[in-house]
């Protein structure tokens, strides 16, 4: 089982260009400075490689905060 803290730590590692103090559970990740389509790809790839969970474009569209994203990942864990 992963925790929200682990999840955010991994996101911080992957998003080199995002200030790490801007990532919290209630952060609306779409509103992060410099946010772009490349970051959505990185989320898909990170979640797939770390937790073997395949997110869809719809999954991303249905979420706003990092907590919501984390909840979707947890719901899909095998």
């Amino acid at each position, binding site marked *: 089982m992963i925790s929200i803290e682990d999840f955010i730590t991994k996101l911080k590692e992957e998003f080199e260009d995002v200030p790490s103090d801007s990532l919290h559970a209630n952060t609306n990740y779409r509103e992060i400075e*410099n946010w772009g389509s490349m970051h959505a790809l990185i989320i*898909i*790839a990170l979640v*797939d490689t770390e937790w073997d969970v*395949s997110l869809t474009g719809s999954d991303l569209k249905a979420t706003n905060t990092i907590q919501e994203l984390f909840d979707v990942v947890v719901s899909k864990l095998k």
Partner: protein
Amino acid sequence: MEKAYIQVVETYVPQNTLSNVDLSLQFDIPQDEILKQTGVKTRYITSEEELASDLAVSVGKKFFKENAHIKKTDINFLLYCTSALDYVGPATACLIHEQLGLSKNCLAIDIPMGCAGFTNGLIMAKALIENGTAQNILFITSDMPSKVVHPNDYYLKSIFSDAAAATLITNTKGFEIGKFSFGTDGLGAENLIIKGSGARNPVDFDWLEKHKNVGGLKIGRMEMNGLEILKFSLREIPPLFEAVLHKNNLKESDIDYFIFHQASGIVIKYVSKKLNIAPEKVISSLEDYGNTVSASIPIALSNAIKQNLIQPNSNIFIAGFGIGYSWSATIIKN
């Protein structure tokens, strides 16, 4: 049964380049940001009158010039892989055959494939060598994706690049070509496609009118769902790797180097991560060449050979994958 070997790889790029400085000026994105996002510093761009077949002829001429011990009459098969044929007919391979001055006893055939084109073509070349049909196959892979990328499409423009490679496959010496695994999934066709091309969806007046400010995009426009292509790569390459290891009676630890189709920085990084590969084992030419479609694997291999990166008796996993969806992979051993 004869064995098939990759003996020589030559590469060729057009003169014009597209740098991150150029992209930064056009799209107002910092240069270092472009490099981080794409993994690419330099892309090569064909001039207006220069086609993939021109690159193919240039790399073919370079091949014979640099390898004087190989005579044109030695070549008994020309395979030409591209996703940018000159005509629906005749086969572009026949035109290249003529311009290279190959023997009339040499058969010339097109393989109209994209990102998996190199490994797909190797499957055919290996079979032709092993069954005794051919002894020396000149396999040219050449593409010009820049001509079907919308000039204002940052994502595609920052990744794709034009180039050609000529690979000699023989029955004598070089990198021995192992057994292949492969697959196809046409359900993915819409996720990477050249719209406004071919007979199904040809360019019409409305299309030309819509794109008149960017030259008409007369031979089509590439459209890619990057998210789906990434998911496809992460889904199919791990089992492909396992299947290739099994077919060649090898373990993961037996593989010394990995050359993936140079799709993009993100695809290579996360496919490598999912396979748990040490970064130093991954051979890449992405930074200096971009995604050159069917030429990307031979360009990476050629650079690694020239830089003496590959130690003797190495097992190299090579995997082509993408548009189709189509994918194939094998081990080559020096």
